[in-house]
């Protein structure tokens, strides 16, 4: 653990690969939102206050004039239910955070930022400076990228053609590998993955994350062995996740 500045930059540097992949997605969001008739200011405002990539794409897809407020708010709750689980999980690692810092930190909670924060917590301790190094840099890229897209967008093409959308899955896979500790991790991942994929194929909406997470957590509870509730041994994963 270094000084506050060192921790902040360490967080910003760690999240760099995600920033590279986020920039074109943010541009695309701005472009699509502008095509739906939102003004550049409205697009920037949405990115800065809602600040949730997956939801914003879904919302823009459903957008109409006048805006269907009830539908959009309900969609926000459904698409973001996963954040409840992420907040509960990372909240346990926020022992160094003051009360206000916790509430502020949740404002910049994203899937990717959360995953990097979990990795940091697993490797040692998560400081507020490191967390906000991740959060602030991602927020800057997302808001400025979507504003830029709104203003200059068009003709950017589809980022998925260049594999940018897969970058997020690749980042998650790399972080997931660091969580491996024993066969029980395998059982948790197998049940979570199988249930998530099944629900994704059968149920519309974003329920698959909740369903998969509960399956994984349920498996862990079922496999719990008395006296085995210390932290899973850390040394096994040393060196697997160079940072």
């Amino acid at each position, binding site marked *: 653990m270094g000084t506050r500045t060192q921790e902040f930059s360490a967080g910003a540097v760690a999240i760099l690969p995600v920033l590279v992949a986020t920039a074109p997605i943010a541009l695309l969001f701005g472009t699509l939102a502008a095509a739906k008739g939102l003004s550049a200011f409205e697009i920037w405002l949405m990115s800065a206050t809602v600040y949730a990539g997956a939801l914003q794409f879904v919302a823009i897809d459903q957008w109409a004039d006048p805006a269907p407020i009830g539908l959009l708010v309900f969609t926000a709750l459904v698409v973001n239910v996963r954040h409840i689980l992420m907040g509960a999980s990372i909240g346990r690692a926020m022992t160094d955070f003051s009360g206000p810092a916790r509430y502020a930190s949740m404002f910049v909670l994203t899937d990717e930022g959360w995953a990097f924060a979990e990795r940091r917590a697993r490797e040692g301790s998560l400081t507020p400076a490191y967390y906000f190094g991740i959060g602030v840099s991602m927020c800057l890229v997302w808001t400025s990228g979507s504003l830029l897209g709104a203003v200059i967008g068009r003709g950017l093409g589809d980022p998925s053609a260049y594999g940018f959308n897969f970058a997020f899955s690749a980042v998650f896979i790399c972080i997931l590998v660091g969580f491996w500790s024993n066969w029980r991790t395998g059982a948790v991942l197998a049940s979570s993955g199988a249930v998530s994929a099944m629900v994704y194929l059968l149920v519309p909406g974003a329920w698959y994350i909740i369903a998969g997470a509960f399956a994984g957590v349920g498996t862990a509870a079922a496999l*719990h062995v008395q006296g085995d509730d210390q932290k899973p041994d850390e040394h096994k994963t040393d060196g697997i996740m160079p940072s």
Partner: protein
Amino acid sequence: MSVDVNTLLAIVGMALATYLTRIAGLWLLQLANVGGRARSAMDALPPAVLMAVIAPTVLATGLAETIAAAITIVAAFRLPLLVAVATGVASVVVLRQLIG
């Protein structure tokens, strides 16, 4: 600079709903005074959520994504994060060309 009232209300509503889901986890945390079996379950939350997020892409999108995910897993065990991610993205682009 144009701002439509309906649009503004929709954005504010979405922002509040989103923030609510983000802080609800902290409240949930205060309710769960964990030990034993519940502790094991909470410890499994990060990998379980991560897996649930990527499972549709990895298992239910296409052969190219599934193979690229497998390549990424192998790369993640041997290479630094940035290189492993780049390997994964490069392989999905190539595989999508090959498999369609």
